[in-house]
């Protein structure tokens, strides 16, 4: 009887010890996992705070003078300012361009207003050759920005376009929307009417270009010169080929749609070597292409501007009275 009790007590003790061992192991595991979770939380929270500190403050101060150039680009700088020239190539349908605008749009306005930078906005349409609706959105946005430039509100309208950028692949930048955003700016009813009339003309050109002219031209080019050669041609090359082969691009002449297509083609040949234009957004300071870490962070761009010498704008202002009206 006695030995039986002892045996049971021994077994009970053994069980107890095993249980305690298990509980201790579990506790240890929990502590380690907790420590690991704390490390993760620490890295994420501190990292987020650091990255977020690079956020540009939304600049709401005065905007420097805006001057439309002969090629349809816009220079934002007050008269006689000597400062580095920051060229901004962007497509209104390009999401990374929207991120650039969110990150550094305010910085550029502020630097230009302080006379510390000459900002040269050079809208392009690298998506003009893509499928509808991407191509149409890109061109309509570009044309609308150019019309806004005629009314002296390019910079403000540029903001509106990026703020309302359509999701890639979805229909957007409708003429009604584009007119509405223009009306939200400080513009007179007369200006809004002019804007709307011109926009309707441009939108019709864009539709003809993206839905009829370009598909027919592309098909023809594929048949006659092959997909491979076609792949190496930029849009302006293709248009030049088309002009010689029965695809008359005359309907683009004198339109802002045609102008932005040409501006895009010219961008590809403007720079060479490491500075070659290859896509958007492309940010240049005095003709030198900035890398992403510089262009896409507030600190990077701010320092790059501060350390650059004064530069020269390569385009000429559009002559007075040269406007269509």
């Amino acid at each position, binding site marked *: 009887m006695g030995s039986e009790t002892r045996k049971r007590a021994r077994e009970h003790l053994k069980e107890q010890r095993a249980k305690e061992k298990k509980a201790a192991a579990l506790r*240890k*595991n929990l*502590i*380690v*996992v907790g*420590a*690991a*979770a704390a*490390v*993760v939380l620490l*890295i*994420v929270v501190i*990292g*987020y705070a650091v*990255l*977020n500190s*690079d956020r540009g403050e939304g600049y709401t101060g005065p905007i420097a003078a805006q001057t439309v150039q002969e090629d349809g680009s816009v220079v934002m700088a007050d008269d006689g300012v000597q400062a580095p020239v920051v060229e901004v190539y962007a497509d209104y349908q390009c*999401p*990374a361009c*929207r*991120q*650039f605008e*969110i*990150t550094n749009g305010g910085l550029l306005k502020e630097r230009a207003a302080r006379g510390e930078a000459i900002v040269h906005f050079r809208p392009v349409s690298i998506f003009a050759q893509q499928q509808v609706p*991407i191509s149409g959105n890109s061109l309509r946005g570009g044309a609308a920005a150019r019309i806004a430039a005629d009314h002296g509100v390019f910079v403000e309208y540029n903001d509106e376009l990026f703020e309302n950028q359509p*999701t*890639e*692949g979805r229909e957007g930048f409708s003429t009604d929307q584009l007119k509405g955003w223009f009306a939200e700016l400080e513009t007179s009813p007369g200006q809004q009417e002019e804007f709307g009339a011109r926009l309707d003309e441009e939108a019709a050109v864009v539709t003809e270009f993206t839905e009829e002219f370009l598909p027919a031209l592309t098909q023809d080019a594929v048949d006659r010169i092959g997909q491979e050669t076609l792949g190496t041609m930029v849009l302006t090359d293709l248009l030049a080929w088309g002009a010689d082969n029965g695809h008359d691009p005359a309907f683009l002449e004198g339109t802002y749609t045609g102008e932005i297509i040409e501006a895009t083609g010219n961008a590809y040949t403007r720079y060479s070597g490491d500075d070659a234009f290859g896509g958007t957004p492309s940010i240049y300071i005095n003709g030198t292409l900035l890398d*992403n*870490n510089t262009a*896409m*962070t507030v600190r*990077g761009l701010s320092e790059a501007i501060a350390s650059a010498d004064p530069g020269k704008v390569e385009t000429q202002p559009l002559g007075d009275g040269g406007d269509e009206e």
Partner: protein
Amino acid sequence: MDTTDETPALVSGSRWDTVQPWITFVCRLALAGILGYSAFSKYPPALSVQAVEAYDLFPHELARLIGYTLPLFELALAVLLLVGLATRFTGAVATLLMLVFIAGIVSAMARGLSIDCGCFGGGGAVDPEETTYGLSITRDIGFAALGAFIALWPRSPLALDRALGLFR
């Protein structure tokens, strides 16, 4: 047969017990390197946000938060793997993360989007013929396997866990 030779080894331990910790160790280093590189390649965050937005799954604000914090989360996992803290847990979380990535890529594929996965920087729309979904998914499966191995056999040398009395 091979299996009769190997199975007892697994159970009785001798060879497997010597080799396994080093395999896990190599997996830890490899996965830490991959996650760390992936985190740094996503800098600056503005571009990472754009890569997330290209999946067209989240509203702008949420995409921004993910674009900022996902690389940091990857970095944190890399650090944990490197020092060997909570090895099993970290390996499992890394595997889950890869499964989430695969789900994201499959969903982009299923919806007919033409995007770069943004796995190692980059991201955003690409020409339809330039998508590399298959490659991205295969790669992520491989990374998930590394994580799974670590989670299943967490015992490895040069790990904080050992110092704390775990997975000795």
